[in-house]
């Protein structure tokens, strides 16, 4: 099962979805995403992951990702296969998937070792000017998860803030799961279709989950919990440390509501600038 996650890059990462994957002990997942901040690290540490297609796996504001390091350096908790990408190459792979294109040719990464490490690209020559080109094949995720501010019950998404590769990943997927902070009226969302990256016809589930992206930010809803990323970095230097962190923040809470209660005042503080686009239903 391949899942594209965190496709807006640093913001709007569906941590609530990832934590539920851990609680449900999912295994052998193939994760797809440009940078994914620390969510990929958590899923790797929890043993859910078989393969990663990503441009970057780490902790954006705090540094390296300890679980990713342990998996690659020591096979703990298991060996994973990595398909290296750059942000542009994964964007083009998802664009090819979205357009149903056989591949997308590009001049990026020529001379880089990434194409060899990725293993799915092919070098070619442009028949138009004879220049060397790199051909990026499509990525078609089984599921793309789109975390957003609001959605209507039929799956019409309202996604504010930078999109990163969210639109390409959603259009490329076989199915889309929507994670939203609030449910909005269909007419209201359809009034501003430019904020909707994909047609609702692709959406198989709309999950109403408040605070689903913490500690990553969600534009107009809440800020980024920088300290939480640093705490995670410090806490997960060892396997025991990671297990302790997971027991506290993932398996130790039964759902997102309990997680937010546990965050307490610090969660409230992150929402001080929040402003909703739609009347809550």
């Amino acid at each position, binding site marked *: 099962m391949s899942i594209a996650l965190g496709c*807006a*890059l*640093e*913001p709007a990462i569906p941590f609530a979805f990832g934590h539920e994957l851990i609680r449900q002990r999912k295994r052998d997942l193939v994760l797809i995403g*440009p*940078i994914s*901040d620390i969510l990929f690290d958590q899923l790797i540490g929890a043993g859910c992951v078989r393969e990663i297609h*990503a*441009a*970057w*796996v*780490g902790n*954006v*504001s705090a540094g*390296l*990702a300890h679980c*990713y*390091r342990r998996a*690659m*350096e020591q096979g703990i908790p298991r*060996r994973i*296969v*990595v398909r*290296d*990408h*750059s*942000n*542009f*190459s994964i*964007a*083009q792979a998802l*664009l090819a998937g979205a357009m149903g294109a056989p591949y997308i040719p590009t*001049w*990026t*990464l*020529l*001379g*880089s*070792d*990434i194409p060899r*490490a990725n293993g799915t690209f092919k070098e070619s020559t442009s028949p138009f000017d004879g*220049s*060397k*080109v790199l051909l990026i094949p499509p990525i078609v995720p089984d599921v793309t998860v789109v975390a957003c501010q609001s959605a209507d019950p039929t799956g019409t998404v309202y996604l504010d*803030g*930078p*999109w*990163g*590769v*969210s*639109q*390409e990943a959603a259009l490329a997927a076989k199915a889309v799961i929507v994670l939203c902070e609030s449910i909005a009226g269909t007419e209201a969302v359809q009034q501003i279709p430019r904020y909707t990256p994909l047609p609702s016809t692709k959406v198989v589930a709309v999950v109403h989950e408040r605070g689903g992206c913490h500690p*990553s*930010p969600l*534009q*107009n809803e809440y*800020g*980024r919990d*920088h300290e939480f990323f640093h705490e995670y970095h410090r806490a997960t230097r060892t396997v025991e440390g990671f297990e302790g962190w997971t027991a506290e923040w993932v398996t130790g809470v039964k759902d997102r509501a309990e997680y937010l209660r546990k965050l307490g005042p610090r969660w409230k503080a992150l929402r001080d*600038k929040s402003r909703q686009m739609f009347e809550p239903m």
Partner: protein
Amino acid sequence: MDVSAGEIMVAQAAREIRDGEMVFVGMRLPLIAFVVAKRTHAPSAIGLFELGIVRDEPAPELLYTMGDPANVEGSIWCARTIDLMGMLQRGEVDAGFIGGAEIDRYGNLNTTAIGGDRAHPKVQLPGSGGGADIASLAHRLIVIMPHDKGRLRERVDFITSPGYGRGAGWRERVGLPRGGPSVLITTLGVFRFVDGEAVLVSNHPASSLDEIRANTGWPLRVAGDVGETQVPSDEVLGIIRDYDPEGFWTRRGE
């Protein structure tokens, strides 16, 4: 308060940005360098952020990531990664900033893995992000990194972001349309690239050629007119310390 290496690096990086240029900015020191450039000699420079943000004014507050809400508010365009990368591939981006764990004498950067093979590395690094794209497609690459023998190596284990490969002419041979590193700014000095190879052009006031030679993993090439890196003016220091009052990015580890 003494001038920190971070502040000297930021001031030098700011000088690398010309007025009116489109620049892939990134975070940390480069972001502060962009702030300095905008407030001094490059008021009409444009900052690009790979998640889809275009700004003509730096965010008013210190950012931890380019996706912080403060970097979105007040942007002149908020779009998609593919839109910004398209501008990069079209050759519309003049310069880009990048850091790295390892660099070699030809400006090749490794942010992927150290030692072992790709499937079993000795040290797993986070990877390229957009760095390899900026190194491939921007007209100029501005590299900023700490200076020590382990990082400035004769050869990097993995070329994540291509510099000049094995020297002059290599980028053309592999098919890269333009670009390459124009400068390497370290905690000890400043290098320019001559025929694809790093040449030391200045040492920071607190360092020396001997210290730099001792901490560089390749036979050091020194410019005939090597001098001292220009120290930031009080105006520039004021801008830096106003933007990073705690020295979170510019004075760490000092």
